[in-house]
């Protein structure tokens, strides 16, 4: 098939960016979009042109490294998929794809489609953990966790930290990301002792890190590749107020 690409190029944070057009002719629709970009980069290198920078690692939707806007939507807006899981067969022959970096809140462009999401680590550092040191743990089955609770906690724990929620949010808020961790840990009996402190610390840290406040707009939920539900935000706000 034939695919037209319009890609955001920006050498670094301080230089201005622009769109550059490319065309991939006769590519197999069985390739993933990132594989198509690999192919394009091989060509650019042979032509001594600067390849397109985009990050990825697992290429199977679990590490959260990849991610950019495809035609204005984080990860392309396909239900349950990350950028690396988007295959060309999703598009029509001769379609044009516009690729832009995730923007929003304190995310800063590093190069082309790569952005700095390190503020996420700062949020987790502010209490996104259970304080258990090696040696303290009781026998595992002495903590019973009802199956439904374990499942609900898991649904939130599935967050991959890709940043699509921030990129989709009109306020540039990271409330879905922050609340998913609060929900995961606070739902479990092991996480209860630090529940309130965790919720309030993490939410304040999010604001302090330069993300916007949440107005329950709900865009985040629609683009989350792990389908994390907005209910985690209501829960987290309640926990912080307790």
């Amino acid at each position, binding site marked *: 098939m034939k695919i037209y690409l319009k890609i955001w190029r920006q*050498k670094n944070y301080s230089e201005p960016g622009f769109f550059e057009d490319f065309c991939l002719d006769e590519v*197999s629709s*069985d*390739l993933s979009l*990132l*594989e198509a970009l*690999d192919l394009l*980069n*091989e060509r650019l*290198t*042979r032509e*001594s*042109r*600067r*390849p397109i920078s985009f*990050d990825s*690692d*697992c*290429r199977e939707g*679990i*590490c*959260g*490294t990849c991610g950019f806007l495809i035609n204005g939507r984080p990860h392309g807006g396909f239900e*349950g*998929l990350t950028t690396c*899981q988007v*295959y060309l067969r999703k598009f029509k022959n001769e379609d044009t794809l516009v690729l832009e970096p995730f923007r929003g809140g304190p995310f800063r462009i*590093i*190069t082309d489609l790569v952005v700095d*999401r*390190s503020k*996420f*680590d700062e949020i*987790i550092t502010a*209490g*996104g*953990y259970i*304080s*258990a*040191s*090696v040696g303290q*743990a009781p*026998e*595992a*089955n002495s*903590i*019973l*966790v009802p*199956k439904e609770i*374990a*499942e609900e906690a*898991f649904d939130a*724990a*599935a967050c*991959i*930290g890709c940043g699509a929620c921030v990129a989709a949010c009109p306020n540039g808020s990271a409330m879905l990301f922050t609340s998913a961790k609060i929900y*995961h840990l606070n739902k*479990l009996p*092991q*996480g209860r002792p630090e529940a309130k402190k965790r919720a309030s610390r993490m939410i304040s840290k999010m604001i302090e890190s330069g993300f916007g406040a949440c107005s329950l707009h709900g865009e985040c939920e629609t683009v989350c590749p792990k389908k994390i539900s907005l209910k985690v935000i209501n829960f987290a706000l309640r926990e912080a107020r307790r």
Partner: protein
Amino acid sequence: MIPSANIPPGSIDKKWSNFKSSCELVAPANRRKFRILVVGTGLAGASAASALGEQGYEVLVFTYHDTPRRAHSIAAQGGINAAKNYRNDGDSVFRLFAETLKGGDFRSREANVYRLAEISVQIIDHCVALGVPFARDYGGYLDTRSFGGTRVARTFYARGQTGQQLLLACYSSLLRQVDLGNVKIFPNHEMLDLVVVDNRAVGLIVRNLLNGSIHRIKGDCVILATGGYSNVYYLSTNARKSNASAIVRAFKRGAGFANPCFTQIHPTCIPATSEHQSKLTLMSESLRNDGRVWVPRNQEDKSKDPRLIPEKDRFYYLEQWYPSYGNLTPRDIASRAAKKVCDEGLGVGPMGLGVYLDFADAIKRLGKDTIAERYGNLFEMYQSITGENPWEVPMRIYPGPHYTMGGLWVDYNLMSTVSGLFVIGEANFSDHGANRLGASALMQGLADGFFIIPYSVPHFLATNGKNKISEDSPEFIVAEKAVSERIKRVLSYQGNHAVSEIHRRLGKILWDKCGMSRSHAGLTNALSEVKELAEALPKLIRVIDEGEGLNYALEHALRLEDFVKLGELMILDALERKESCGGHFREEFQSEDGEAARNDEEFAHVSVWFNQNGLRLETEKLTFEYVKPTIRSYK
């Protein structure tokens, strides 16, 4: 020379407690004076760094990822073993030990493997305490399942995302130490060299990937937790950036490299369909619990809709050849069996390199809901990659490179042949011998990091004291200069190919001749091809100079050079090991019915390679006191 393996005295079940009660300790007030450098934040690195932080040491952690949460461990699907015997199905520490040793085809150390089985129980306790949402049954107790190569259900799991949940637990535990001020993390920093003075590891040379700056970092000891090297084959189930540079650099600085030819080919990957495919996706082995593996009996049926092929024309080769384990035979055996039927022309799919993994019977027997609960996300993943619906048509699978049992040699304390250089997780030569059983890498990474390192590192520091070499010493300056020059050299290469194209070329040589099946002729041939490639690199590769900013192609080019070096070592090791064992199958050494023929008389040893005045091979003899080496039979 290989130092002593330092196995503690006593019977096998007492060795570890003997070590723990006799090792040297560092007083709490002195711990802060020691600085420990950890490279890698996968399960092994993150758990070691957080446990050492908890003890009060100054810990600096380096990873080339943009955050510690993205290490390759995140992708592990199936589960983690532990001898809890919650199912009352006959499991015990001794059984897990014996099965791991047997699964590894008697090419690992008894004392280490026993300790691993012993610690497995504590791992689950600690992970639950950290909030890992493991699968539960209706009573709220932990659920388990069985995994390839075993007959008990000892595998704990978190849907098909066990690695993700374990890694995120280690990551949060690590960030807690950051919060408390004990650990400092350097993301986007790649270790490009190890600094060794008088055979003691004294520090690292790292490069900041975002701005290209190079730094000298001094420490009192160094822990490498940098993962495996399956990407030497280019196409593998590993994450794209996984690489061998840290261990190859350490090898160049004097660390012995053990059993480089022991690589594991996983039987259930989604088959490659095009030359430009960038990686292989693993379908968790747990699928073999309910899926049945088959190929058509007749070549004419290969391109038929598999659903229309009647039962009598299907060849369930694993069930037929290995009746007692059936579809659950260990990985090396299942992989070779798939190769065998495909070599006979029965393979299905675009390039004839595939076999069916069929869930129709299981769906009939257990219902769609149960299957969806067990494997839902894997089915979705398969569908999104292949565009085929596995609820309707059987999956197609084929073996692919997955795990490397080889790695830097370590003693019982997980210290390499370089003093003060510890190696943990997949990066060491590990407890898995010539073949790893499913769900045991996560176990090993966490045993190493959470439970062993917190004893062996203090023991080393208490015995050897602080490192006195400063960052301004000539050794550090020379090492830094060498790294800068190497980068300049790579940027000056004037080839006509992107790095990935040449990496693919290396991968093909190794996959064809040092992959699932190896022969003297093939290996000899591969050796000269890899050497030629090594020489030609400067004329083949082109890397665009991007100045000070991020440059992925440059990172890849540096890693490729190290992969080429390692490829050569793998081939040499495969040539030297004139036997078949576990994942290492030499065509010349097979039994009458085509199974691997081990040679315990001559090869019951660890092969350790050194890079001092040329390559040199030494061996560590393996002795078996508690489990008698038997011929593995899964028939």
